[in-house]
């Protein structure tokens, strides 16, 4: 039984996009250097978005774009049996430093809970789960080499064993994030970018972020010409 990639969303310091929809927006130009507010991307506002750490913000953006690309609608209070797995190389390092320095600055008397919660590498996924109503398995995984491949393998393994009917798998660092929507392949599936084996092979090349997006985008173009 094959697993398909049926949505892919991504964001970096300048652009964001949905691969299957062919959407690619340079927000640095369109917002004239202002930061994204979220209105451009989310169906409804993320609660306390300004308080999220960077990785959580980028995770939420990329997940919203991936779900949009896959045609999955979400709304407040509606929950889905979809899981989420992420990876990265830095873990929660920046949030760890921020939390501990802030605590030291207080004379080691006062630490801030709202900084502490982002010192877990799984916390950005928790923020995404709350906003998008994801009730499936939630895990952070990482590996010394090709961590995104490890995340994809774990997610597809969960679908194959019926642990979840669909999964989000992706990566989020301080300045870039990408998420894939994975589901079991079926004849009725209209929107498919590629099967997970093909995606694995691309991720196995360990390319820089922009090249990886380009390679997946070219897959979509090839399918369009078929």
């Amino acid at each position: 039984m094959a697993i398909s990639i049926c949505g892919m969303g991504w964001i970096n310091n300048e652009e964001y996009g949905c691969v299957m929809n062919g959407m690619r927006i340079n927000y640095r130009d369109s917002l004239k250097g202002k930061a994204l507010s979220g209105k451009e991307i989310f169906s409804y506002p993320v609660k306390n978005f300004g308080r999220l750490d960077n990785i959580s913000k980028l995770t939420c953006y990329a997940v919203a774009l991936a779900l949009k690309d896959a045609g999955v609608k979400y709304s407040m209070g509606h929950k889905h049996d979809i899981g989420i797995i992420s990876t990265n190389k830095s873990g929660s390092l920046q949030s760890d430093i921020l939390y501990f320095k802030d605590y030291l600055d207080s004379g080691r008397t006062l630490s801030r809970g709202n900084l502490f919660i982002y010192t877990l590498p799984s916390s950005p996924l928790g923020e995404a789960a709350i906003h998008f109503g994801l009730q499936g398995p939630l895990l952070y995984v990482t590996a010394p080499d090709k961590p995104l491949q490890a995340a994809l393998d774990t997610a597809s393994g969960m679908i194959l064993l019926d642990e979840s009917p669909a999964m989000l798998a992706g990566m989020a660092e301080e300045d870039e994030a990408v998420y894939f929507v994975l589901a079991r392949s079926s004849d009725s599936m209209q929107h498919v970018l590629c099967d997970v084996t093909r995606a694995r092979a691309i991720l196995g090349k360990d390319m820089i972020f922009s090249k990886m997006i380009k390679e997946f985008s070219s897959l979509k173009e090839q399918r369009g010409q078929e």
Partner: protein
Amino acid sequence: MSGLRAVVVSADMVTAYGNGMDSCWNNILSGRTAISGLNRFNTKAFQSDYAATIDSLQYHQKDSLVMQMLKPLFDRASVSIPEDAKLILATTKGEIDLLEKNILKGTGETPDCSLTSLLKKVSALTRVKDAGVVVSAACASSSAAVARAAAMIRSKRSDCVLVVACDSVTEFVFSGFSSLMALDKFSARPFDKNRKGLSLGEAAAFVLVMSKTRARQEKREILGEIAGWGLSDDANHMTGPSRESEGLILAIKKALKTAAADKSAIGFISAHGTGTVYNDAMEMKAFHSVFKDKKIPVYSIKGGIGHTMGAAGIIETIIAMKSLREKRIPPTVNLRDTDADARGWVSPEPCPADKRKMALLTNAGFSGINAALVLAE
């Protein structure tokens, strides 16, 4: 089908009770707590000065606290670990004390205290060839890792998986839990009417998981079977559990389904049982919902060894398997006055276990993560 069954063939641990599974098991059965006054760092500003720590560990030395736990653990165990085992490391904060040390020194350098750096050290310690993966799912990290190991066996991706888990009590983590007002001033009292919060603990442990076929071929002693697992999320709140318990109920139902077991097959429950007001109430609500009026014996070991965070699930798996083998259900340490919703379910005394039944194990963590395992003898 037996080739697809995941069994534990070797396990070991270090907790605040000392080295080994028997030390932990005997102390829990005796009802003694290992939670005591904490003198590793200044606790004056915190909610509590109690934790379950390992006396021999040296803070802010060359080796991190978790490496000081793991080195002796694998010095004792390496002979029984095949080098072709796949490796999964479960932790929440790994070597965070190395980062603390550098920030306190003010060197301006960031040490390599990443989870993958720890994974490389663990891979070298265990002498397995696999580079491995890290699984981090807050305080459900190691039960999630045990679930992944069983999934790898069932899907034939491997026939031998080593799961290692560790976390330590550091100023970083202690101050954080204190800021969230999650700590009991003294010693955690899971399922007690007067419980006030959790007590932190530290531990390291491993389980070697094999397909039953390989375990038989190698004539390994079988300590227990990971029969089912279920993972879910509340999708509700970052630090508090859902009061409706629907996430944990979903995880339990998934675990029973993957075990192909009916709820009537469950003989006892190893609960997450942190001692916080909301966690324990949420768990009891889930157990009432799944098991209805049939009261199943429930226990928590966190009044004994504290909440060992990313290591909690693996320690609890080893103890629950021991309980299945010994046909004895551990007491809930520190339980004095049972909360109304737990009455008839939890006990301060050990009790006999039904010989033919399985165990359910539950864990939960920040981000609303839930994990459930079904364990068999």
